[in-house]
């Protein structure tokens, strides 16, 4: 595949002495909207966390852009830094910084990690919040946001550092059907702009409707449908 941005080769995840998932293989390029399906506890979240460098994996190779992670090897600080420039993760429970407003949540990483001037970061953050339809909630605290609003702010925060790969863990979990359709359309716009999305969900309809590719965890293996 040309312009490969995410490559997973023969990755195996072992948790508590049990092989959770093995022989995971995936190659993804810009614009791919990949849905990873599987029952609860099958390892969907664990796969995302391994790609984001939050959890170790036991075998194989994960490559994101020019960053290569190997099983059972702790990546160095420099590799992790580059990885995080290339991968964004939206958590199932959003994990917005509770002591900051929505706007501050979105600006924080550009200003402090990537040294973007505050004014410019704020401008970009407002543009992102507008694009995601939550610009009116810019000054709200996370506790004041609804589930859907919090999720959009979390997406904006992940996109603020402009990662080519965006991972999303169960984004449909707290949304009603109309909101799911809205989110699907939003994610399609992101992939249309060249971003690669890997989204975990139980929702088969959503997967059929919006994804360009679907992976399913069956037993302890991952199969592309």
């Amino acid at each position, binding site marked *: 595949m040309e312009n490969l941005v995410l490559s997973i080769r023969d990755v195996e995840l072992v948790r508590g002495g049990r092989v959770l998932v093995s022989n995971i293989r995936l190659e993804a390029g810009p614009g791919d909207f990949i849905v990873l399906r599987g029952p609860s506890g099958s390892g969907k979240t664990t796969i995302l966390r391994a790609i*984001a*460098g*939050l959890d170790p994996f036991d075998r194989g190779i994960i490559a994101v852009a020019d960053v290569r992670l190997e099983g059972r090897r702790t990546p160095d600080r420099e590799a992790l*830094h580059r990885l*995080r*420039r290339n*991968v*964004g*993760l939206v*958590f199932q*429970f959003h*994990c*917005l*910084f*509770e*002591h900051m407003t929505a706007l501050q949540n979105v600006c*924080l*990483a550009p200003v*402090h*990690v*990537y040294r973007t001037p505050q004014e410019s970061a704020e401008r970009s953050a407002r543009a992102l919040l507008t694009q995601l339809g939550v610009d009116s909630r810019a000054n709200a*605290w996370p*506790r004041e946001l609804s589930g859907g609003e919090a999720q959009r702010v979390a997406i904006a*925060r*992940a996109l603020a*550092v402009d990662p080519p790969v965006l991972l999303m863990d169960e984004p449909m979990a707290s949304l009603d059907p109309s909101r799911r359709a809205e989110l699907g359309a939003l994610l399609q716009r992101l992939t249309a702009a060249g971003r690669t999305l890997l989204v975990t969900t139980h929702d088969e309809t959503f997967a059929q409707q919006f994804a360009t590719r679907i992976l399913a965890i069956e037993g302890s293996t991952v199969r592309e449908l």
Partner: protein
Amino acid sequence: MVRLVTIAALTWAGINVSAQPSTFRWAGDPEGGAPFVEADPADPTLVVGFDVDIAELIARGLGREPQFLAVAFASIDQSVARGDAEIGLSGVEDTPARRAAYAVTIPYYQFREVLSVRSGDAGQFRTLADLRGRRVGTLGGTVAYEILLDAERQQGIVAVSYEDDVHPYSDLLIGRLDAVLLDNVLAERRSRTTPGFVTHPDPVAVSHYVGVLAPGNRELRDRIDGLLRQAMRDGRLEAIFRKWKIWNADQPQLFARVLEGAPIPPVAGYGEDRSYGSESIATMSKWHATRRYLPAFARAALVTLILSCGAMLAAVGLGIGIATGRLYGHRVTRAALAGYVELIRGTPLLLQLFVLYYGIAEAIRLPAFVAALLGLALNYAAYESEIYRSALLAVPIGQLEASKTLGFSEFQTLRLIRGPQAFRVALAPMTNDFVALLKDSSLVSVLTVVELTTQTRIFATNLGSWVVPGILCAALYLAMSLPLAAIARRLERRWRI
């Protein structure tokens, strides 16, 4: 010799001492040491001293058994007033305040307030007037301290109050003080064990030791006066003083004046031209006395506030350092910091203050205020660090993982995300600790720092009552702590997360 019984022991044992008319309960401070009252080196459950012998003399005269009650020197008056004991005898001084507020016996021993200076300064410092701008120490709440406070106003010396009569002399020798003013009995006792200072023989003032009884106990006081007069006449009192090597030429003169019924002023020889001591706080109206003490209270409250704020600021800084070191540091750092926290939490603050001020004085001579501030800061830092450590651990892991995925370094995460969130969690226990620190700061009086509680004690001793000083002290502490609690509550509301 008399069996030592503490108030606590009596209370716990449930013994109703007032139901035993065959005993004569008397209060004294065994920490005062020889020759007054001290634990018998041969049997520490017994006390010995000239006051012990006098108590026995009185008890026998009353046909009762003496029973000793250990009471801190500064609390003897109050203990007697509330009926813990019938009389206080422990080098209790004859003062205008005491005469006005209690039933006081006839003076039974005359002492001189004498000035001790380092041997090398003997020619330079002979009187209080020679000590302008110099630090002169003594035991707080005594005639000597009142004289020094007066000399501070009149002659520009710096009066320093101690909680015991040992450290003034050790501080004199290491240069923290330039002179000590205390009873000749205490000065002579100290000179026998501590060389390096001389005591000028000319007294700064003359006063006496008396027995103190509750104000309503004048009938018993009169009987005791009769027994003491009899002992002066028949030589038994002289024998006691000779036994304890404190008999001198002053005593026959005192005995003669007492026996002929001559008026004896409580304090003589100091500031008589200005009628010093004639106007006692105890004889003033409470309102007048309070107004007189208000500036001193304000100063003491300021000392408490500065000390507490300074110590808390330092404790917060150190506490944050210790907490982060314990969470992020190397194994050795973590072990060392954990050891520090356990050491500080496992030992009394009072001991730590003593070590800082007196224990390391040979190596580092910290000024009293600095030692107090440092002692409180080091102690509270250990407790604060545990609050911050638990608050940091309470920040949800999701917050930390979110910060990781956004590329923040560990230090940035601590500074921008974990720290601010932990601070909100720690705010309530921190406020609690600050209020506790405001009150714990009273312990620094052992380092000669006169803060609010010490000032209250001085006022209460001179007034002969704790009611007005206690209310004033409580009001000032509340005036300091309530706004703080209000600010903390407002911040908690604002930062509700």
